[in-house]
Protein backbone atom coordinates (compact mmCIF):
# COMPACT_ATOMS: atom_id res chain seq x y z
CA UNK A 1 0.00 0.00 0.00
CA UNK A 2 2.99 2.31 0.18
CA UNK A 3 2.74 3.14 -3.52
CA UNK A 4 -0.90 4.05 -3.02
CA UNK A 5 -0.17 6.46 -0.18
CA UNK A 6 2.69 7.87 -2.23
CA UNK A 7 0.37 8.69 -5.09
CA UNK A 8 -2.19 10.17 -2.67
CA UNK A 9 0.57 12.44 -1.44
CA UNK A 10 1.34 13.42 -5.02
CA UNK A 11 -2.33 14.14 -5.66
CA UNK A 12 -2.61 16.37 -2.59
CA UNK A 13 0.53 18.34 -3.44
CA UNK A 14 -0.38 18.68 -7.14
CA UNK A 15 -3.96 19.82 -6.66
CA UNK A 16 -3.32 21.78 -3.47
CA UNK A 17 -0.77 23.90 -5.33
CA UNK A 18 -2.88 24.05 -8.47
CA UNK A 19 -5.88 25.35 -6.56
CA UNK A 20 -3.90 28.33 -5.30
CA UNK A 21 -2.66 29.19 -8.79
CA UNK A 22 -5.83 28.32 -10.70
CA UNK A 23 -6.95 31.86 -11.40
CA UNK A 24 -10.09 31.81 -13.51
CA UNK A 25 -11.56 28.61 -12.12
CA UNK A 26 -11.72 24.91 -12.84
CA UNK A 27 -12.37 25.27 -16.56
CA UNK A 28 -9.40 27.60 -17.00
CA UNK A 29 -7.23 25.10 -15.09
CA UNK A 30 -7.99 22.25 -17.48
CA UNK A 31 -4.84 22.74 -19.61
CA UNK A 32 -2.78 22.70 -16.40
CA UNK A 33 -4.55 19.56 -15.14
CA UNK A 34 -3.83 17.89 -18.45
CA UNK A 35 -0.16 18.77 -18.17
CA UNK A 36 0.08 17.40 -14.62
CA UNK A 37 -1.93 14.21 -15.15
CA UNK A 38 -0.70 13.18 -18.60
CA UNK A 39 2.74 14.71 -19.10
CA UNK A 40 4.27 15.14 -15.64
CA UNK A 41 2.94 12.25 -13.54
CA UNK A 42 1.75 9.88 -16.30
CA UNK A 43 -1.38 9.12 -14.31
CA UNK A 44 -3.44 8.63 -17.48
CA UNK A 45 -3.29 8.74 -21.27
CA UNK A 46 -4.53 11.57 -23.48
CA UNK A 47 -7.61 9.54 -24.39
CA UNK A 48 -8.43 8.77 -20.76
CA UNK A 49 -8.12 12.45 -19.91
CA UNK A 50 -10.58 13.39 -22.66
CA UNK A 51 -13.03 10.78 -21.33
CA UNK A 52 -12.62 12.01 -17.77
CA UNK A 53 -13.45 15.52 -18.96
CA UNK A 54 -16.63 14.30 -20.66
CA UNK A 55 -17.68 12.35 -17.56
CA UNK A 56 -17.11 15.40 -15.38
CA UNK A 57 -19.44 17.33 -17.68
CA UNK A 58 -21.98 14.55 -17.58
CA UNK A 59 -22.04 14.13 -13.82
CA UNK A 60 -23.98 16.67 -11.82
CA UNK A 61 -22.06 19.10 -9.69
CA UNK A 62 -19.29 21.64 -10.11
CA UNK A 63 -16.79 21.21 -12.95
CA UNK A 64 -14.05 20.85 -10.36
CA UNK A 65 -15.21 17.26 -9.88
CA UNK A 66 -12.94 16.36 -12.82
CA UNK A 67 -10.35 16.37 -10.04
CA UNK A 68 -12.36 13.72 -8.15
CA UNK A 69 -12.30 11.54 -11.25
CA UNK A 70 -8.56 11.97 -11.78
CA UNK A 71 -7.97 11.17 -8.11
CA UNK A 72 -10.09 8.04 -8.35
CA UNK A 73 -8.23 6.72 -11.37
CA UNK A 74 -4.90 7.29 -9.59
CA UNK A 75 -5.64 5.90 -6.12
CA UNK A 76 -9.25 4.75 -5.81
CA UNK A 77 -11.71 6.23 -3.34
CA UNK A 78 -8.96 7.61 -1.11
CA UNK A 79 -7.48 9.37 -4.12
CA UNK A 80 -10.85 10.80 -5.13
CA UNK A 81 -11.36 12.27 -1.68
CA UNK A 82 -7.81 13.55 -1.29
CA UNK A 83 -7.74 15.25 -4.69
CA UNK A 84 -11.11 16.94 -4.15
CA UNK A 85 -10.30 18.25 -0.69
CA UNK A 86 -6.87 19.45 -1.86
CA UNK A 87 -8.41 21.32 -4.81
CA UNK A 88 -11.29 22.91 -2.85
CA UNK A 89 -10.06 23.35 0.72
CA UNK A 90 -7.34 25.99 0.50
CA UNK A 91 -9.25 28.33 -1.80
CA UNK A 92 -12.51 27.85 0.09
CA UNK A 93 -10.73 29.12 3.22
CA UNK A 94 -9.17 31.98 1.27
CA UNK A 95 -12.56 32.90 -0.19
CA UNK A 96 -14.08 32.94 3.28
CA UNK A 97 -11.49 35.35 4.66
CA UNK A 98 -11.58 37.61 1.61
CA UNK A 99 -15.36 37.85 1.74
CA UNK A 100 -15.26 38.67 5.45
CA UNK A 101 -12.71 41.35 4.76
CA UNK A 102 -14.97 42.80 2.06
CA UNK A 103 -17.98 42.71 4.40
CA UNK A 104 -16.08 44.68 7.01
CA UNK A 105 -15.04 47.33 4.51
CA UNK A 106 -18.55 47.49 3.11
CA UNK A 107 -18.76 51.22 3.67
CA UNK A 108 -15.65 51.83 1.62
CA UNK A 109 -16.28 52.36 -2.06
CA UNK A 110 -13.32 50.40 -3.40
CA UNK A 111 -14.73 46.86 -3.08
CA UNK A 112 -17.67 47.79 -5.30
CA UNK A 113 -15.30 49.40 -7.80
CA UNK A 114 -12.97 46.36 -7.83
CA UNK A 115 -15.87 43.98 -8.26
CA UNK A 116 -17.48 46.05 -11.01
CA UNK A 117 -14.13 46.25 -12.82
CA UNK A 118 -13.74 42.47 -12.66
CA UNK A 119 -17.14 41.65 -14.19
CA UNK A 120 -16.21 42.12 -17.87
CA UNK A 121 -12.90 40.28 -17.39
CA UNK A 122 -14.58 37.37 -15.76
CA UNK A 123 -17.17 37.03 -18.53
CA UNK A 124 -14.45 37.37 -21.17
CA UNK A 125 -12.47 34.52 -19.58
CA UNK A 126 -15.51 32.27 -19.50
CA UNK A 127 -16.18 33.07 -23.15
CA UNK A 128 -12.61 32.06 -23.98
CA UNK A 129 -13.04 28.76 -22.10
CA UNK A 130 -16.22 28.16 -24.09
CA UNK A 131 -14.33 28.67 -27.34
CA UNK A 132 -11.42 26.43 -26.34
CA UNK A 133 -13.73 23.65 -25.14
CA UNK A 134 -15.81 23.98 -28.31
CA UNK A 135 -12.69 23.52 -30.39
CA UNK A 136 -11.77 20.32 -28.54
CA UNK A 137 -15.22 18.72 -28.53
CA UNK A 138 -16.75 19.97 -31.80
CA UNK A 139 -14.83 17.84 -34.28
CA UNK A 140 -17.60 17.83 -36.92
CA UNK A 141 -20.11 20.40 -38.09
CA UNK A 142 -22.93 18.34 -36.61
CA UNK A 143 -21.14 18.48 -33.28
CA UNK A 144 -20.89 22.26 -33.69
CA UNK A 145 -24.62 22.41 -34.50
CA UNK A 146 -25.39 20.51 -31.27
CA UNK A 147 -23.34 23.04 -29.34
CA UNK A 148 -25.06 25.99 -31.01
CA UNK A 149 -28.49 24.42 -30.55
CA UNK A 150 -27.88 23.82 -26.86
CA UNK A 151 -26.58 27.37 -26.44
CA UNK A 152 -29.62 28.93 -28.14
CA UNK A 153 -32.11 26.78 -26.23
CA UNK A 154 -30.42 27.42 -22.88
CA UNK A 155 -30.28 31.16 -23.58
CA UNK A 156 -33.79 31.66 -24.94
CA UNK A 157 -35.83 29.13 -22.93
CA UNK A 158 -36.08 27.90 -19.36
CA UNK A 159 -35.83 24.30 -20.52
CA UNK A 160 -33.96 22.05 -18.09
CA UNK A 161 -30.34 21.82 -19.39
CA UNK A 162 -30.40 18.11 -18.61
CA UNK A 163 -32.56 17.49 -21.69
CA UNK A 164 -29.98 19.12 -23.94
CA UNK A 165 -27.23 16.95 -22.48
CA UNK A 166 -29.45 13.92 -22.93
CA UNK A 167 -30.13 14.85 -26.56
CA UNK A 168 -26.39 15.28 -27.15
CA UNK A 169 -25.76 11.88 -25.58
CA UNK A 170 -28.42 10.18 -27.73
CA UNK A 171 -27.05 11.76 -30.91
CA UNK A 172 -23.55 10.68 -29.89
CA UNK A 173 -24.77 7.16 -29.13
CA UNK A 174 -26.44 7.03 -32.55
CA UNK A 175 -23.09 7.83 -34.13
CA UNK A 176 -24.14 11.19 -35.56
CA UNK A 177 -21.43 13.25 -33.84
Amino acid at each position, binding site marked *: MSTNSDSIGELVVTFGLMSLFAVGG*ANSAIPEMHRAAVEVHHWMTDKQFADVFAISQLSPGPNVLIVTLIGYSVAGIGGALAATVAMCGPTALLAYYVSRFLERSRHARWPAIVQAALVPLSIGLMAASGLILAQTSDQSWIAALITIGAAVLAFATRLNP*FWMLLAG*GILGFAGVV
Partner: protein
Amino acid sequence: MPPESSPVAAPAPNAPASSPPNQPGLLELFLAFAKMSLAGFGGVLVWARRGIVEKHRWMTAEEFNETFALCHFLPGPNIVNLSVVFGARFRGIAGGFAAFAGLVGPPMLIATVLAALYAHYGDIPALRRTLAGVACAAVGLLIAVVFKMMMPLIKRRDVTGLVILVAVFAAIGLVRWPLQIVLLVAIPVSLAITILARRRAKA
Protein backbone atom coordinates in the same frame (compact mmCIF):
# COMPACT_ATOMS: atom_id res chain seq x y z
CA MET B 1 -42.98 32.18 7.36
CA PRO B 2 -44.31 35.76 7.44
CA PRO B 3 -41.30 37.84 6.48
CA GLU B 4 -42.44 41.37 7.21
CA SER B 5 -44.88 41.02 10.12
CA SER B 6 -42.50 41.04 13.11
CA PRO B 7 -39.59 43.45 12.95
CA VAL B 8 -37.18 41.83 15.46
CA ALA B 9 -34.40 44.36 15.23
CA ALA B 10 -33.59 47.44 13.24
CA PRO B 11 -31.99 46.45 9.93
CA ALA B 12 -28.33 47.24 9.33
CA PRO B 13 -27.93 50.86 8.20
CA ASN B 14 -27.25 50.04 4.56
CA ALA B 15 -29.20 46.80 4.33
CA PRO B 16 -32.52 47.87 2.81
CA ALA B 17 -30.98 49.31 -0.32
CA SER B 18 -28.36 46.66 -1.03
CA SER B 19 -29.56 43.26 0.16
CA PRO B 20 -32.64 41.37 -0.99
CA PRO B 21 -35.32 40.61 1.59
CA ASN B 22 -34.90 36.81 1.67
CA GLN B 23 -32.41 35.46 4.23
CA PRO B 24 -31.72 31.73 3.93
CA GLY B 25 -31.01 29.59 7.03
CA LEU B 26 -28.27 26.94 7.36
CA LEU B 27 -30.33 23.94 6.30
CA GLU B 28 -31.88 26.00 3.52
CA LEU B 29 -28.37 26.90 2.30
CA PHE B 30 -27.21 23.27 2.37
CA LEU B 31 -30.31 22.03 0.58
CA ALA B 32 -30.35 24.84 -1.97
CA PHE B 33 -26.73 24.25 -2.94
CA ALA B 34 -27.15 20.46 -2.96
CA LYS B 35 -30.13 20.89 -5.31
CA MET B 36 -28.34 23.34 -7.60
CA SER B 37 -25.33 21.10 -7.63
CA LEU B 38 -27.23 17.88 -8.35
CA ALA B 39 -29.23 19.62 -11.07
CA GLY B 40 -26.03 21.12 -12.42
CA PHE B 41 -25.16 18.99 -15.39
CA GLY B 42 -22.47 20.67 -17.42
CA GLY B 43 -21.50 23.07 -14.66
CA VAL B 44 -23.35 24.47 -11.70
CA LEU B 45 -23.13 28.14 -12.65
CA VAL B 46 -26.26 27.90 -14.81
CA TRP B 47 -28.17 26.50 -11.85
CA ALA B 48 -26.58 28.69 -9.23
CA ARG B 49 -27.65 31.73 -11.21
CA ARG B 50 -31.13 30.37 -11.74
CA GLY B 51 -31.54 29.32 -8.09
CA ILE B 52 -30.03 32.38 -6.42
CA VAL B 53 -31.30 35.10 -8.76
CA GLU B 54 -34.41 33.78 -10.51
CA LYS B 55 -35.94 31.32 -8.06
CA HIS B 56 -35.04 32.34 -4.49
CA ARG B 57 -34.30 35.99 -5.31
CA TRP B 58 -31.49 36.01 -2.75
CA MET B 59 -29.52 38.32 -5.01
CA THR B 60 -30.20 40.62 -7.95
CA ALA B 61 -28.63 39.90 -11.34
CA GLU B 62 -26.11 42.68 -10.76
CA GLU B 63 -25.17 41.46 -7.27
CA PHE B 64 -24.74 37.95 -8.61
CA ASN B 65 -22.43 39.17 -11.37
CA GLU B 66 -20.32 41.12 -8.91
CA THR B 67 -20.07 38.28 -6.38
CA PHE B 68 -19.24 35.85 -9.12
CA ALA B 69 -16.60 38.17 -10.52
CA LEU B 70 -14.93 38.33 -7.12
CA CYS B 71 -14.95 34.53 -6.90
CA HIS B 72 -13.62 34.26 -10.41
CA PHE B 73 -10.53 36.18 -9.42
CA LEU B 74 -9.85 34.34 -6.26
CA PRO B 75 -7.85 31.31 -7.29
CA GLY B 76 -9.52 27.91 -7.40
CA PRO B 77 -12.88 26.59 -8.51
CA ASN B 78 -15.24 29.60 -8.86
CA ILE B 79 -18.43 27.93 -7.88
CA VAL B 80 -16.85 26.46 -4.74
CA ASN B 81 -15.66 29.93 -3.82
CA LEU B 82 -19.09 31.32 -4.61
CA SER B 83 -20.78 28.82 -2.29
CA VAL B 84 -18.49 29.76 0.60
CA VAL B 85 -18.76 33.50 0.02
CA PHE B 86 -22.51 33.31 -0.48
CA GLY B 87 -23.12 31.14 2.59
CA ALA B 88 -20.85 33.28 4.76
CA ARG B 89 -22.59 36.44 3.59
CA PHE B 90 -25.85 35.28 5.14
CA ARG B 91 -24.80 32.98 8.02
CA GLY B 92 -21.09 33.45 8.74
CA ILE B 93 -18.59 30.60 8.72
CA ALA B 94 -21.27 27.97 9.40
CA GLY B 95 -23.22 29.24 6.41
CA GLY B 96 -20.11 28.99 4.25
CA PHE B 97 -19.60 25.39 5.37
CA ALA B 98 -23.25 24.48 4.83
CA ALA B 99 -23.28 25.81 1.27
CA PHE B 100 -19.89 24.26 0.50
CA ALA B 101 -20.92 20.84 1.88
CA GLY B 102 -24.16 20.94 -0.08
CA LEU B 103 -22.35 21.88 -3.26
CA VAL B 104 -19.50 19.36 -3.13
CA GLY B 105 -20.66 16.43 -0.97
CA PRO B 106 -23.53 14.76 -2.86
CA PRO B 107 -22.09 15.17 -6.39
CA MET B 108 -18.74 13.86 -5.17
CA LEU B 109 -20.42 10.59 -4.23
CA ILE B 110 -22.00 10.38 -7.69
CA ALA B 111 -18.74 11.26 -9.46
CA THR B 112 -16.95 8.51 -7.53
CA VAL B 113 -19.56 5.97 -8.60
CA LEU B 114 -19.27 7.13 -12.23
CA ALA B 115 -15.48 6.89 -12.02
CA ALA B 116 -15.77 3.31 -10.80
CA LEU B 117 -18.17 2.48 -13.64
CA TYR B 118 -15.85 4.09 -16.17
CA ALA B 119 -12.92 2.07 -14.83
CA HIS B 120 -14.88 -1.08 -15.67
CA TYR B 121 -16.72 -0.14 -18.85
CA GLY B 122 -14.70 2.79 -20.26
CA ASP B 123 -13.56 0.98 -23.38
CA ILE B 124 -17.02 0.32 -24.80
CA PRO B 125 -17.27 2.37 -28.06
CA ALA B 126 -20.96 3.23 -27.63
CA LEU B 127 -20.18 4.80 -24.26
CA ARG B 128 -17.34 6.80 -25.75
CA ARG B 129 -19.57 8.11 -28.57
CA THR B 130 -22.25 9.05 -26.06
CA LEU B 131 -19.75 10.94 -23.92
CA ALA B 132 -18.58 12.88 -26.99
CA GLY B 133 -22.18 13.93 -27.75
CA VAL B 134 -22.76 15.01 -24.17
CA ALA B 135 -19.61 17.13 -24.23
CA CYS B 136 -20.87 19.06 -27.30
CA ALA B 137 -24.12 20.00 -25.57
CA ALA B 138 -22.30 20.88 -22.34
CA VAL B 139 -20.15 23.43 -24.16
CA GLY B 140 -23.33 25.01 -25.57
CA LEU B 141 -24.70 25.43 -22.04
CA LEU B 142 -21.53 27.21 -20.96
CA ILE B 143 -21.79 29.58 -23.93
CA ALA B 144 -25.42 30.37 -23.02
CA VAL B 145 -24.37 31.36 -19.48
CA VAL B 146 -21.78 33.71 -20.93
CA PHE B 147 -24.46 35.48 -22.97
CA LYS B 148 -26.84 35.65 -20.02
CA MET B 149 -24.14 37.24 -17.89
CA MET B 150 -23.46 39.76 -20.67
CA MET B 151 -27.06 40.99 -20.66
CA PRO B 152 -26.72 43.48 -17.74
CA LEU B 153 -23.73 45.05 -19.51
CA ILE B 154 -25.65 45.31 -22.77
CA LYS B 155 -28.75 46.74 -21.09
CA ARG B 156 -26.61 49.37 -19.37
CA ARG B 157 -24.92 50.15 -22.74
CA ASP B 158 -21.63 49.62 -20.92
CA VAL B 159 -19.45 49.99 -24.02
CA THR B 160 -16.10 50.07 -22.20
CA GLY B 161 -17.02 46.94 -20.24
CA LEU B 162 -17.95 45.13 -23.44
CA VAL B 163 -14.71 46.21 -25.12
CA ILE B 164 -12.69 44.85 -22.18
CA LEU B 165 -14.73 41.65 -22.27
CA VAL B 166 -14.04 41.11 -25.97
CA ALA B 167 -10.35 41.99 -25.55
CA VAL B 168 -9.89 39.37 -22.79
CA PHE B 169 -11.80 36.83 -24.85
CA ALA B 170 -9.59 37.47 -27.89
CA ALA B 171 -6.33 37.44 -25.94
CA ILE B 172 -7.05 34.13 -24.15
CA GLY B 173 -9.34 32.36 -26.59
CA LEU B 174 -8.00 33.42 -29.99
CA VAL B 175 -4.38 34.50 -29.51
CA ARG B 176 -3.89 32.06 -26.58
CA TRP B 177 -1.69 34.37 -24.59
CA PRO B 178 -0.85 33.05 -21.09
CA LEU B 179 -3.56 33.76 -18.53
CA GLN B 180 -1.26 35.43 -15.99
CA ILE B 181 0.08 37.97 -18.48
CA VAL B 182 -3.39 38.88 -19.77
CA LEU B 183 -4.70 39.35 -16.24
CA LEU B 184 -1.67 41.42 -15.29
CA VAL B 185 -2.58 43.92 -18.03
CA ALA B 186 -6.37 43.64 -18.01
CA ILE B 187 -6.99 44.07 -14.28
CA PRO B 188 -5.25 47.47 -13.90
CA VAL B 189 -6.74 48.72 -17.17
CA SER B 190 -10.26 47.72 -16.20
CA LEU B 191 -9.82 49.21 -12.72
CA ALA B 192 -8.59 52.52 -14.12
CA ILE B 193 -11.47 52.72 -16.60
CA THR B 194 -14.06 51.90 -13.93
CA ILE B 195 -12.71 54.57 -11.58
CA LEU B 196 -12.63 57.16 -14.38
CA ALA B 197 -16.16 56.29 -15.48
CA ARG B 198 -17.52 56.65 -11.93
CA ARG B 199 -15.81 60.00 -11.49
CA ARG B 200 -17.26 61.26 -14.74
CA ALA B 201 -20.72 60.00 -13.79
CA LYS B 202 -20.53 61.99 -10.58
CA ALA B 203 -19.25 65.20 -12.20
